[in-house]
């Protein structure tokens, strides 16, 4: 299903995102724009506020200040906004006692998917998890969990994906597999915001990159500047300048 068609306007438009936790300022005014069908990589040192930013985009957190629009709609509360988003966080959001299939069916029901059973079966075969369908998610390895988590995130076929460090804890083969999968999702026309530490993968997966450091966007790049050598140099320079 091609998602890029029919979405006039920006997939994500965030202006002046601020987030305070008590006296701690995790985000101090970040602007973000994402055109439909494009992927934006968000990189930065630990504690820079990347996860916070992503959770705000997903609607899990409300920003202390700033304006946010997803798919042209102001995000807030429930409704169409959240149905357009597929989120993969640091944790899998899965229930260990339920089987793989049951987890997907449950997620499908949460999103009001028309026929959750067959959708679950379809996703399981797409991810190559069909043989694990009746096994409890609690028994899965990290790689399998991640694949199931991705299936869960797209159960409702969202045009926007938000991925928070999805490569964490995956071995080489699983990482490559994930990268391939993400490229496939991208080819469907989905927009995505990808938080990652893996600078080498950015050029293969993203159209643009923004570096977040200390709650601020300190550097942006796109196109050829995403090549690993260039990106790494610019990243280190930007981070050092910020500190």
């Amino acid at each position, binding site marked *: 299903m091609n998602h890029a068609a029919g979405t006039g306007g920006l997939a994500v438009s965030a202006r002046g995102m601020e987030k*305070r*936790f*008590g*006296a*701690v*300022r995790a985000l*101090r005014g970040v602007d973000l724009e994402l055109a439909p069908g494009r992927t934006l990589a968000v990189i930065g040192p630990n504690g820079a506020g990347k996860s916070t930013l992503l959770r705000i985009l997903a609607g899990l957190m*409300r920003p*202390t*200040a700033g304006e946010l629009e997803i798919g042209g709609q102001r995000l807030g509360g429930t409704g169409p906004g959240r149905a357009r988003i597929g989120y993969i966080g640091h944790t899998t959001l899965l229930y260990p006692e339920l089987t793989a299939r049951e987890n997907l069916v449950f997620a499908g029901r949460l999103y009001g998917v028309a026929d959750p059973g067959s959708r679950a079966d379809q996703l399981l075969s797409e991810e190559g998890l069909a043989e694990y369908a009746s096994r409890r998610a609690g028994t899965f390895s990290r790689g399998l969990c991640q694949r199931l988590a991705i299936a869960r995130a797209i159960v409702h076929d969202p045009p926007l994906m938000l991925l928070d460090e999805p490569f964490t804890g995956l071995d080489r083969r699983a990482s490559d597999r994930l990268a391939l999968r993400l490229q496939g999702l991208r080819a469907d026309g989905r927009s995505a915001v990808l938080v990652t530490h893996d600078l080498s993968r950015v050029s293969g997966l993203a159209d643009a990159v923004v570096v977040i450091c*200390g709650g601020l966007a300190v550097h942006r790049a796109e196109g050829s500047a995403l090549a690993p050598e260039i990106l790494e140099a610019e990243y280190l320079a930007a981070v050092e300048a910020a500190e």
Partner: protein
Amino acid sequence: MAGFSRLGALERRVERTGTSLSWLLAALLVAYVWLVVGAPIDSVQGPIQKILYLHPPLAYGAYLGFIATGLGGVLYLWRGSEAFDRMAIAGAEVGLIFCTLMMVTGPIWAKGTWGTWWSWDPRLTVTLLLWFTYLAYLLLRSFAEPGARAARFAAVYGIVGVVLIPLNYYVIEIFEARSMHPDNLERGSLGDGMGMPFLVANLTFFVAFVYLLARRWEVENLAARAALRESEEGDRK
């Protein structure tokens, strides 16, 4: 910062009332002491009856305090401005003080007039439950992650607590009909010479509550402003 600019006008107005309120309160306190000392001693209950000028007026603070907390919570959830959350905190702390004083003066009065420290009399019982609700509210605030989450949870619990007050009265009305509380207070059958002191007492404590609430709110606002300034300066370094 949004909270500050939007509510700045209201906050400044509250601050300005500070001086006029403190004069009013001082005047009332003088009148209060003079009238209470001069009030006739009740023939039946003796001098301890003068707690009449202390205990019921405290009810204003105790109950309005929680209403302020609930209202602050609702406004915070609706508007998102943290100044409302600060009002909720102010309401809870000031209300707790008044409620605690009620829980202290109540038994003293009870012992003096009915001979027992405690009775499960409706109004005293509901006040006791309110007292626990206050403490639970403040405990929730201190245990929750500070910032928006604590404010939000507290606001929700504040709403529950406010709903609880009429619910408790309803419960007690249905089930525990006996009341040892002197109902005659409401009916205006106070003895001669007690009317004026009682009126002034009510007025004094009401104004005292409003004054303390406004001051506490102010303190909280200043603290928040200072914390924000500090973190901004820290960032700039």
